[in-house]
C-alpha cells in the first residue's frame, strides 16, 4: 500500500504542475486552452533537443523550454487571442482558436521532431529501495522540484505585483481595469506564464516519460479533468485536482486490476456524479 501511495503522490505532483498553467489562463482570460498539452510537448522537445541532442546541462534545457514557451504564449495572446476576444462576442470563438492552435502545433511538431518517441538520459541514476517502497531517485527529484515549483508559483501569485494584478484580473476584469491594472499587459504575462509552466513541466518530465508528437491531446484532456475536479480557474483547485487524480489512478490501478481497465471508467463515472452535485468543482471559480 505504501508503494501505491508513493506512486499516487508522485503522479499527483506532476499532474498538479501540468494543470496549473491551464487553470491560470482560464482564470485570466476565460480561455479553455486546448493547446496546453501541445505546449507541454513542445517544452519536452526543446529539452530533448538541448539536453538530449546538444548535450548541454539539463537546467539550461529546462530554462530554454520555459523561455521558448513563454515567448510563444505571449505571441499567441498578443496576436491571436487578444484579437479574437476583441472582435468576437461569442466565447466559443476562443475555444475554436485554441483547438486550431493545438492542431497547428501538433502538425508543426510532427514535421520538426518526427513521429518517434524521444527520450533523454536520466538526470540522476539509482533507485531508492526499502522494504515497502521502491522509487527511482529521478522520480523523487522530479516530485520535489514539482512541489517546489508549485510553492514558488503560489508565492509569486500571492505576493508579487504581477501576481496580485493577475489575481485582480481573474476576480473582476472590469474592476481591475478601473483600478488601473493594465489588462492587456497582464493578460499577456498570464498567458506567457501559463505556457511557460506547460513548457517547463514538459521539459522536466521528458527525463522520466519521454515525449512524442502525438501526446498533446491526451495531456490536455487529463489537465482538463484535474481542473474540473478542483474548480476551473482556481490555482488551489488545480493542485487539489492533480493530487486527487494521481491518487485515484494509483489506487484504482492496483485495487481494480482484476476487473480489467475500469479505473478510468470509475474515475469518469465518479466525476459525472461529482459534477452533478458540485458543477464548479471543489473550489468554484475564480480565485474565490
Amino acid at each position: 500500500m505504501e508503494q501505491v501511495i508513493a506512486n499516487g503522490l508522485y503522479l499527483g505532483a506532476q499532474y498538479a504542475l501540468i494543470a496549473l498553467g491551464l487553470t491560470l489562463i482560464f482564470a485570466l482570460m476565460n480561455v479553455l486552452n486546448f493547446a496546453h498539452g501541445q505546449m507541454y510537448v513542445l517544452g519536452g522537445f526543446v529539452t530533448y533537443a538541448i539536453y538530449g541532442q546538444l548535450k548541454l546541462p539539463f537546467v539550461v534545457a529546462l530554462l530554454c523550454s520555459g523561455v521558448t514557451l513563454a515567448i510563444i504564449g505571449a505571441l499567441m495572446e498578443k496576436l491571436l487571442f487578444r484579437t479574437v476576444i476583441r472582435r468576437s462576442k461569442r466565447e466559443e470563438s476562443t475555444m475554436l482558436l485554441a483547438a486550431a492552435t493545438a492542431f497547428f502545433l501538433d502538425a508543426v511538431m510532427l514535421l520538426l521532431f518526427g513521429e518517434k518517441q524521444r527520450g533523454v538520459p536520466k538526470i540522476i541514476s539509482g533507485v531508492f529501495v526499502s522494504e515497502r517502497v521502491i522509487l527511482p531517485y529521478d522520480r523523487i527529484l522530479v516530485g520535489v522540484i514539482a512541489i517546489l515549483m508549485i510553492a514558488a508559483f503560489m508565492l509569486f501569485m500571492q505576493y508579487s505585483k504581477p501576481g496580485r494584478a493577475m489575481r485582480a484580473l481573474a476576480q473582476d476584469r472590469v474592476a481591475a481595469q478601473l483600478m488601473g491594472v493594465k489588462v492587456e499587459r497582464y493578460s499577456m504575462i498570464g498567458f506567457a506564464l501559463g505556457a511557460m509552466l506547460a513548457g517547463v513541466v514538459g521539459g522536466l518530465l521528458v527525463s522520466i516519460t519521454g515525449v512524442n508528437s502525438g501526446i498533446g491531446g491526451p495531456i490536455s484532456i487529463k489537465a482538463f479533468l484535474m481542473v474540473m475536479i478542483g474548480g476551473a480557474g482556481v490555482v488551489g483547485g488545480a493542485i487539489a485536482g492533480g493530487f486527487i487524480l494521481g491518487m485515484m489512478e494509483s489506487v484504482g490501478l492496483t485495487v481494480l486490476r482484476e476487473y480489467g481497465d475500469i479505473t478510468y471508467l470509475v474515475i469518469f463515472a465518479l466525476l459525472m456524479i461529482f459534477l452533478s452535485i458540485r458543477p464548479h468543482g471543489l473550489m468554484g471559480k475564480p480565485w474565490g
Partner: protein
Amino acid sequence: MGSEMINRRSTLKSLALGAVSFLAIAAGGAFSAQAENKELKIGFVGVTSGPAAAWGTSNVRSMQTRADWLNEMGGVKIGEDTYNVTIVTFDDQKDPKRAIAGMEKMAQEGIHYVVGPNVDDGAAAVRPVAESKGIIYFPYAFPKALYAPPASNAVLGMVANYQSGPAIYKYLKENKGVKKVAFIAANESDPLSQRDSGVAAAKELGLEVVAEKDTYQNDTRDFTPVLTPIVQLKPDLLVLSGVAPANAPLLIRAARELGYEGLISAETAQDATVLQEGAGELANGFISVGGASTPEIRTPVMEEFIDRYTKKFGEYNDESNTKVYALEYIIETLKANPKAIDDVEEFKKTVDTFSAPNPYAKDSTLKYVGTTSFGQKRQLSVPMVVTEFKDGQFQTLFVGEVD
C-alpha cells in the same frame, strides 16, 4: 555612354532569353522523358498523425523511398509498359470512419492496390469498400476474418502475433526456463486481441499465466502504478502485448525500476533508437519480433534502402524493415501478371503461384503465405526475425517463417 547602355541591356536580354529558352528546352526534355512512362498509383490509408503516427508514417516513408528509387532507375516495367510509381496517401487518424473515406478516395482515383490500414477496426471498416470497388489492400491488423474466406481482398502485411507468439514462448520455455508469464496490454482492440491470443498460446504450451487482465490507457505516460501489482507477482516473462513503440521503453523502464528481473518480450516490431533513448541499458535483454531485418540477414539492397530512407527523412525507423515489403510485393506481383494492373481478380489468381527473389533478405523469396492461419494465401511472407535488444542494437535470436 547611351549606346553602351543599350548594348549592355540587349546583351542581358539576349542572355535572359537564352537562359529561359534553355530551361524551357531542358524542362521539355525532362517532361517528355517522364511522359514516356505511365503512372502507377499505389495508395496508402492509415494513421500518420496522433499517438500512433509512427505506425503509418513508417509505411508511407518506406513506400515513398522505394517509389523514388524505382522512378530514379527509370520506373518499373510491367508487361509492355513502363510505369513511374506514385504514392497517394490518406491519413485516417486511426478513425474507422476516416479510413472508409480514405478507401473511397482511392477508388475515385482509380487505385486498385492500397497499403493499410494500420489497426483492426480501420481494416475491418474498409472491407466493404475494398470489395465493392475492386481494391486489394494490405492491412497491418490481425483479425483472421479479414483474410479467411469468404473475405478475399485483404492481404496481411506482416507476421501476426498468433504466429510469432507461440514461437517466442516455446523458445523462451525451452532455452530460458520460463514457467510463469504475465501479460499486459493497452486497452484497445489490437493489443487486447493480441493479448488474448498470446494468453491462449502460453496456456497451450503449459505455461502458468499469472496476469492476463492488466491493461493501460494507450496515452499513459507513467507506467509505475500499472506495473506495481504485476511485478509483485514475480513472473519469469512479462509480455507487452501489441505494445506501441512509443510505450515499450516506458514500460520496460518502469518494470526494471520496480525491481523486475525477469524477461520482457513483445510480438510487435520496435525501434532500436526509441528503446535506447527511452530505457537505455534497462532495455537490454528485451525480446521482440525485430522488424524482419537484422544486419545478419540484410542484403545490399536493404542496406541501400536504409541509406536512402535516412537521407530522405533524416532518421531511419526500424519498423520499415517490415513495412518496405508491401510495395515490393504489389509491384512484383503485377510484373508476374500484368493483367492484374487494373483487375484484382487476376491478382488473386496470381498469389497462389507467385514467387520472386527477396531483394531485402538473404536466402529468402517473396511469396504469399497464410494457408495454415487463414485457409488461403492472404499474407505476405516476411522473415520472422526474433531479436534481443542489447546496447542499442537488435541481435538475432532466431529466424522463423510463417507456414
